[in-house]
Structure formats: C-alpha cells, structure tokens
C-alpha cells in the first residue's frame, strides 16, 4: 500500500493504476524531458552537477550528505571506466520507500541515473535491489528493458554520442549490504563485508574504479531538479533541507504508508496524515529508521520533519522511516527486538561489533526475562562505548544508538524490571 500526498517523485503518479510504472505513462507525465534537454543542449557536465548542488538535495539513504557535492568528488579526467551505483538495498527496519519508487515510478530512477552517468562520465550503472523485494526487482528489470528499447540506454543515447547502460543486481538477505562499500563487495560477487575507508568509492569503488553510490530517492529526485530547476526544488523544503522527502510511517498509526511531503513539515501534521494514533496514546517515535535514537512523545511533537530539527532533538532523520509506538509498548521488549536484529545482521568482520552486538542482546534479553542484575545498565554503557566508533563501518554505532537512547529516555522501565523482575508496562505489540 502506498499513500502519497504530493511532492517531487510521486507528483502525478496514480498508484492505483497498474500501468503507472510503464514508460508511456512516465513520458505522459513529462518523463525523460530532463535527459533530452541535457543531451540536446550538450549541457556541460559541471553545469549539471552545479544544478544538483544548488537544489540542496541531501542523500536520502540516511547520512544526508549533499548529493551534488558527492558527484563533484568523481575524478573528471580519469581515463578509465567509472560507475554510478544505486542503493535500493532497503533493509533498515521501518524503511520501505524505495520499493514504492521502483514499483510505481521506476523510470524516474532510471532517468536520474542516466543523468548522473552523464554528469560524472560513467559508462555503466547498477541498481542493487534488496533481495526480499524480488517482485520489485523483476519489475525494475522490465522497466530497464523498456528504456533500452526506447533508446534511453545503450550506445549513442538519442543520437548524442553518449553511451551508458544500466543493470539491476539483487541482494539475497544481508542488512549490511546497505552500507555502501559492503554493497560494492556484494556487487563484485563477494560476502558483503564493508571496506576500510579511505580510499573512498569516488577513487576506488566498483572493480577498483571511481564510483558514486546514491540512494534510490536521491537519484529519482534528479529529473525534477533538472526539469523544474534547483531553485524550485529548494523552495519546496527549507534552507539547508531542500525539497520534499518520502517518509515511511509504520507501527501504531491508522494508515501506515509512504508520505512525500516538504522537509520541515511538523511531525504532528505527518501523524495526522497517517490517520493518527492507533490503540493508545503516543509514547515514543524512532524518527529515522531503527538505527536512529528513539525520542519520547513530548520531544517528538515539537519537531519538524527535516535533518536539522531532528538532529537538534538528539536523533537523526536517517532514511525517513518513522516508527510510531503507543503507550502499551514495553520499551525493554522493543529494544530487545532491535538488539536481536543487529546481533543477527553483524557481518562478523570486526570483533567489537561481532561480539558486542551479541553481548548487548544477551544483557537486554536477561533484563526482559527478569534476570537482570544490578549494574546491567552500566554494563550496557560500557559494552556500547567499546563498540561505537571502533569498527570499520557504522553498524556497531547503529546497534549502540538505540540502546543508549532507550536506556536514557525510558530508564525507569529498565530499572523497574531489574529491581522487580517484572515489567512496568504490561506489554502489548498491537
């Protein structure tokens, strides 16, 4: 199910129409005009990058790094092959926006990637798609076939002399492959274990060649930016937070789904759009995917949905995955489930993460089961401090953020369970 209010990527897309993803439907919505205008005007590469920079577009996958700036890191004069790679390996609990992009509007992504390939002088691109959404992968391959047949991909695109091809690659069940260098390893046919950085992908990426990796939503925003202008995109959001953003709302709301709204929209409005609370009063929200620190209701209700406001409140906008919990959720139980996830998904490469995620899970598990010991909260702190910032990638940090924030904001529930061997909140999932 998908619900779209308005915005950039889903403007004019009738998601109830089973053919809305097709090339002719996309063309009728003005699709591929941005690419055509770039190619017919022989727009200089740096002008394309300047336009993306000017839009204020920040990476929609979680880190929020400025997309145009990232593109400018690609060595312009490099003589060999270069690549653009799209990260549709969406496995951050709570996030389900990229699936809807490739299911309902795949050509926006394809066009965005072709433009990126042109701007950075790449010869080919790959879209790495989460294995669990295999039907979406098959549909994306069908969209690629359409684009190839119409002359938007391949040799001498639209007679311009520009060559670029694009392929889909699927994952097969590994959260870690959402980390960009693990994704590259996986794309090379290896275990998805993150690489040490530097070197960064812009100098040593796929097959050792300069590579830029962006999130699905970032690439899919590019046609709008080129066609309607950086300024218009920027004005949709607020300064330093340009554009609209897809928010995936899950948990205790009446209408879970995706909402594309201007950055800076108050959280209270978003909650209302999602049909309001289900089953009880708002207790807590994880505003940016499971790795983002949880925020209690009173803090969250003061936030607007943009990078700066959420960051000021002590969390992260991340991927825009908003997990809503009502008053019947036992926070120890909720944290235990997340801790299990990180333990299960640690790739095992770095000792602090491989061992630490298991340790965190076991301690939280014993607290939940009434076997907590005095000093367990300090132990969680200590284990977390020995994980965060001490590993090759950020999975360890991602595992520690929820532990720190849950035990900070809802400390009484943990203390009560340790002392009384029973939970303060009579837990009900739904």
């Amino acid at each position, binding site marked *: 199910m998908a619900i779209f209010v308005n915005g950039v990527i889903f403007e004019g897309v009738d998601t109830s129409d089973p053919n809305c993803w097709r090339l002719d439907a996309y063309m009728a919505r003005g699709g591929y005009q941005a690419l055509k205008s770039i190619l017919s005007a022989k727009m200089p590469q740096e002008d394309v990058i300047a336009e993306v920079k000017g839009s204020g577009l920040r990476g929609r996958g979680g880190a929020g790094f400025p997309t145009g700036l990232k593109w400018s890191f690609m060595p312009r004069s490099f003589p060999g092959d270069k690549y653009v790679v799209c990260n549709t390996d969406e496995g951050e609990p709570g996030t389900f926006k990229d699936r809807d992009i490739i299911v309902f509007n795949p050509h926006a992504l394809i066009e965005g990637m072709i433009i990126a390939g042109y701007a950075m002088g790449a010869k080919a691109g790959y879209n790495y798609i989460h294995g669990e959404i295999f039907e979406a992968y098959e549909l994306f391959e069908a969209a690629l076939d359409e684009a190839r047949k119409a002359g938007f991909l391949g040799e001498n695109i639209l007679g311009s002399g520009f060559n670029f091809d694009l392929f889909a690659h*699927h994952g097969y*069940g590994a959260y870690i492959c959402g980390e960009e260098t693990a994704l590259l390893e996986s794309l090379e046919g290896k275990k998805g274990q993150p690489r040490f950085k530097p070197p960064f992908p812009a100098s040593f990426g796929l097959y050792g060649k300069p590579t830029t990796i962006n999130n699905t939503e970032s690439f899919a925003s590019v046609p709008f930016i080129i066609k309607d202008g950086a300024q218009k995109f920027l004005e949709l959001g607020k300064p330093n937070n340009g554009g609209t953003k897809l928010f995936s709302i899950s948990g205790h709301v009446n209408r879970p789904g995706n909402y594309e709204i201007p950055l800076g929209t108050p959280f209270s409005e978003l909650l209302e759009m999602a049909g309001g609370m289900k089953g009880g009063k708002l207790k807590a929200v994880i505003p940016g995917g499971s790795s983002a620190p949880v925020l209690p209701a009173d803090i969250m209700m003061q936030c607007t949905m943009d990078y700066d406001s959420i960051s000021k409140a002590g969390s992260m906008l991340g991927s825009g995955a908003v997990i809503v*919990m009502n008053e019947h959720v036992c926070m120890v139980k909720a944290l235990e489930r997340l801790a299990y996830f990180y333990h299960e998904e640690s790739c095992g490469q770095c000792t602090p993460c491989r061992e630490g995620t298991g340790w965190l899970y076991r301690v939280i598990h014993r607290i939940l089961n009434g076997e907590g010991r005095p000093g367990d909260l300090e132990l969680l702190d200590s284990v977390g401090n020995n994980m965060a910032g001490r590993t090759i990638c950020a999975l360890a940090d991602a595992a520690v953020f929820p532990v720190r924030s849950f035990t900070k904001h809802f400390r009484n529930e943990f203390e009560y369970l340790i002392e009384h061997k029973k939970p303060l909140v009579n837990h009900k999932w739904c």
Partner: protein
Amino acid sequence: MLSAESLALIDRELAKYPADQRRSAVMGALRIAQQEKGWLATETIEFVANYIGIAPVAAYEVASFYNMYNLKPVGKYKLTVCTNLPCALSGGVNAAEYLSKKLGIGLGETTADGKYTLLEGECMGACGDAPVLLVNNHKMCSFMTPEAIDKKLAELE
C-alpha cells in the same frame, strides 16, 4: 546438473557485468540454481562456481553469508515472517505465532510431510504492509491477518 533454462538465465546474469568480472554473477546464479533445486547442496554450489569460473569456496562463501540461500533442504513452501520491531507493532509476531500453532511447528522447523518450513525473518523493507510473509523467498504477501493466512495456506497445494 542444471537445466538448459537455468543455464540460459545464468548467462543473462553474466551479460550484465564486464567480461573479466564474471564473479559478480554468482549471487544471481546461486539464486537461479536454488529456484530449480529447492536448496543448495555442496555439489550444486560447486557446479555454479565451475560454470562461472570461480573457486568453489568463493561461491560457498556467498551462499553461506546471505540468509536467503538454503544450505539445507526446506519444505515445499518456505514461509518467512518478519518479526522485526516495525512489523511486530502491526502484528508480525502474532502472525508468526498463529502460523506456528496452525502448522504445529516451531520457528526454524519443517512439517513432517515436508510441505512447510517456518522461519522468522529480518526486515524485508515492507513495514507499512505488516504483517508480511514471504513464500519461497520471492512471493511477498501483505497484511497477513489470521484470515489472510488461512486463505493463503488453502491456496498453497
């Protein structure tokens, strides 16, 4: 070892990558092999490795790292339910418990008649559609209330 159809599909995967990067196709090739065989026996993994032209251990490493590959035989229908936090808040855990009771097996087990294997899964990227159930890795079923589960099981022959 693999059918002509499967080999043709693997060739399509190989064509996506530069000629000197055949290893990139191993994930797709193992998936195709598993679709034909139901699971990946060591001989199947070796066959795929030899077909692509990589060391068998390199293919085995991939098959054992990614959790959607079956390294042991599974039931005719492998049912994977997401029980991660966002799904749990919308009935994911309840769906897993309902299936477990209905099939009379625990998580990670296969029914005696070899028809169903029940697994707990991690995030499938579909939290808005929870409870979510994957049938044999590729078919995603959304909003799996007890009634929807009953209906789905009746469809699976």
